[in-house]
């Protein structure tokens, strides 16, 4: 089983990100479970969502305490919420930012991970470029696929298009594709 935990703020599409990941896994014939940590719905409040992927039926119903991958949609959470709780140093870490780790104050932390397991992605900028709104989730999903090798790009794009029909889906898919490509080509 592969477990992903996504952190962000209300309104950034954190929950949707988890759902799209689960749909992508489904498209690949996997079992997947996606759910948010539930709290009062409010723009700007910290939100966490989870996604589990497995080849067999997933029966477990607890939050993801030991993620294999962590996606941080909003780096302003970094020193406010214990984002890294349970993350193994063999896991994956993906942060939505243009800044360097040192600027974020997590330089030493990041050094514990294999270099190709950790990645930043200018997801908000990609979203603004392709979609016109600062919703970084699609780009981050593309980045996740690239970094983790757990999902194919095609599945991710199909899932995005399923979740967002029409023009909106195409643009989000474009953002995801660019995020994916920029990681794979580096």
């Amino acid at each position, binding site marked *: 089983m592969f477990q992903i935990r996504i952190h962000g703020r209300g309104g950034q599409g954190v929950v949707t990100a988890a759902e799209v990941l*689960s*749909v992508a896994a489904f498209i690949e014939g996997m079992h*997947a479970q*996606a*759910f948010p940590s539930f709290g009062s719905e409010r723009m700007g409040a910290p939100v966490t969502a989870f996604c589990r992927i497995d080849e067999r039926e*997933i*029966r*477990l119903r*607890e*939050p993801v305490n030991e993620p294999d991958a962590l996606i941080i949609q909003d780096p302003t959470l970094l020193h406010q919420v214990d984002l890294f709780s349970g993350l193994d140093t063999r896991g994956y870490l993906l942060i939505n930012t243009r800044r360097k780790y040192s600027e974020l104050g997590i330089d030493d932390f990041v050094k514990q991970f294999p270099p190709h397991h950790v990645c930043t992605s200018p997801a908000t900028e990609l979203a603004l470029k392709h979609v016109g709104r600062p919703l970084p989730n699609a780009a981050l999903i593309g980045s996740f696929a690239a970094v983790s090798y757990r999902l194919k790009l095609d599945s991710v794009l199909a899932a995005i298009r399923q979740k967002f029909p029409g023009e909106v889906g195409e643009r989000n898919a474009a953002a995801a594709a660019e995020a994916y490509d920029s990681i794979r080509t580096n």
Partner: protein
Amino acid sequence: MLKQVEGSHAVAEAIALCRPEVICAYPITPQTHIVERLSEIARSGTLGNCQYVNVESEFAAMSVAIGASAAGARSYTATSSQGLLFMAEAVYNAAGLGLPIVMTVGNRAIGAPINIWNDHSDSMALANAGWIQLFAESNQEAADLHIQAFRLAEQLSVPVMVCVDGFILTHAYERVDVPDQKSVDAYLPPFEPVQLLDPDEPISIGAMVGPEAFSEVRYLAHHKQMQAIDVIPSLADAFAETFGRRSGGLIEEYRTDGAETVIVALGSVIGTIKDVVDEMRDAGVAAGAVKIVSFRPFPLAALRAALERAKRVVVLEKDLALGLGGIAASNVRMALRGLPVPVYTIIAGLGGRAITKASLHKALAEAHGDTIEDPLFLDLDWQIVDHELAREREKRRSGPVAENILRELGLVGGKLR
């Protein structure tokens, strides 16, 4: 068709496949996504003449369903927690009138203190209202149980409550095989009411019944529930034949063969428990589990047969009878009466607190060694509790406990000291 879909939407689609004629509901977290999706489906035109009624309260929701069902329409509503209590009078009324209404209860804790997260206190509060109560383990089972529920309700003229864990199931995306219309039609025939408001054959429904007949009427209602003990498994069998998978029934046994410690639970937590049982078995511990699907009627005989050879039974439940302890546990003990099998109670998940494998392993190891506290309040923060108890011993202050605790922690503004 296999879909990756939100639980509430799977339930809504299952309801739609059952060709409801009147849908009425009042929104309450965490059931809202079900009724929202149903309103979309109703407007899409695929439900024919189905009437979707936006009601002004849960009490009105059940009342509209009562009128609709009495007039011969297949009726559906959904609620949770406070809403279920608000309609309590009507819930009893529907059962007493023998109306085959199907209702989803998105299980949620009951206040005060207000809490929107999952536990089973709502269903437990209305367990004796005369409704059949079925609990879903997964969203697949949630969808399937609704289809079985309509057939069950209409066959027996008893309303059916399908309990689906709020948030944990309702808001989780997972794989569900949503049946096709043809199969559902084959399984669920059109509603043929036993009694009906019809100008061509006028009858009066709902008269007052005095002491001379009330007991008999009540007994007959009880008898119908007991009949359901046989009907529920047969409908589950018919379901398996039509749809090719097992769902529902009275209980489900998991690795109970040779199990010394058997955990009993309702709803989604059984999934986590199955994982824990596998891990215990891998470690050489003879553990097993029993899922109770039908809480009412309570499957006394089936449970006894499943549990009588165990060395001990642990009932894990998401509810608490204040002043007594476990509700499901008490029911399970009744199934085992006369047998020397200890039944331990674990109270867990109240108000949505996560039930983790780690905590379960620890508790079940204690149970297996017969050293478990009984009842055990899983993951209770005894520090907070003891601190509050100590404070209460010193100084009497009335008011809600929750606020008192927060006040001590300095999180609630009060008088400046």
